[in-house]
């Protein structure tokens, strides 16, 4: 009997993490909306965890509030701006595409563009130089070729 109880509690321990938190379960459309929105919001007390991923009490409170707002018929954008109005743009995990946030989105593109321009200019210069080499004066080329042949004649036969 005792062994059975031990086994039972072990099984309960193993199964416990598989049980979803009440506010994160469900597959109805509203559950999916709560999940999608809470993945975009930053948990205020965590290091770069979304409200969806965080196990903290505050994040759970947020998820409950998101669900309430969704049940009241607010759109996704309205729910996002509800939290932005209270916590600022900081609450969004992805910076909004305006102001300094826009710079964050555009900076990598700008750097990529600048790098591309540098590579393009370098390649163009190499090609110009190669082309210039081909346009050598024929008399200079002939003289060089004659000098090379003379040197080869001086070499001992192998």
């Amino acid at each position, binding site marked *: 009997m005792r062994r059975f109880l031990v086994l039972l509690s072990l099984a309960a321990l193993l199964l416990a993490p598989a049980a979803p938190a009440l506010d994160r379960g469900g597959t109805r459309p509203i559950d999916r909306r709560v999940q999608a929105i809470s993945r975009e919001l930053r948990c*205020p*007390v965590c290091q770069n965890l979304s409200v969806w991923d965080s196990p903290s*009490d*505050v994040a759970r*409170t*947020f998820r*409950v*509030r998101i669900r309430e707002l969704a049940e009241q018929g607010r759109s996704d954008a309205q729910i996002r701006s509800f939290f*932005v*109005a*209270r*916590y*600022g*743009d*900081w*609450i969004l995990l992805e910076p909004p595409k305006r102001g300094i946030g826009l710079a964050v989105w555009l900076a990598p593109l700008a750097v990529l563009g600048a790098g591309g321009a540098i590579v393009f200019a*370098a390649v163009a*210069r190499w090609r110009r130089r190669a082309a210039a080499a081909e346009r050598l004066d024929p008399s200079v080329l002939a003289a060089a070729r004659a000098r090379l042949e003379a040197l080869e004649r001086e070499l001992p036969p192998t």
Partner: protein
Amino acid sequence: MMRGLRITPLRAGLALAVTAGLVAGLGFGLSRDPRVLAPAVLDHPAPRFTLERLGGGRMTLPRAGRPLVVNFWASWCPPCRIEFPLLHEAWRRWGNRVQFAGVLYRNSASGARAFLVRMGDPPDGSYPNLIDPGSNTAIDFGVYGLPETFFIDRYGVIRAKVIGEISWSELEQNVGLIRR
């Protein structure tokens, strides 16, 4: 033939500009006080809330024409316990002209009550402490963590917010701001 590495005034200027930009960006980011991060609710009307008092009865705040100090706290939060005597002293000094209120954040009523009794300030002995089920009022105020103290002027506008343990000078300065 290392033409690519030749230093020209244009290249030197570009390198300097890029370096200066990076240093300025880093300097700006590192010198900002993270305690005043994203004060989105600042200079906005404070949300109105009606909550149950720890000592019984309901209360609606802010009241028109009366400045308000709202302190979000919990008895399990050490800096909240440390700053409590300061808030109590501020209430003793300015409570006749400024409304003070505590809002409990994820705190059991019994835990908060026990702490207040231990501090010699049983519920409603000084200023009211309100129970915020579901932390809805805290979310409306954009509370990140504990403690946070909001200073609301007589027109109901949030004029200042202090994140973390408050100092006496911060209390004095911000109460002065909302008493005007």
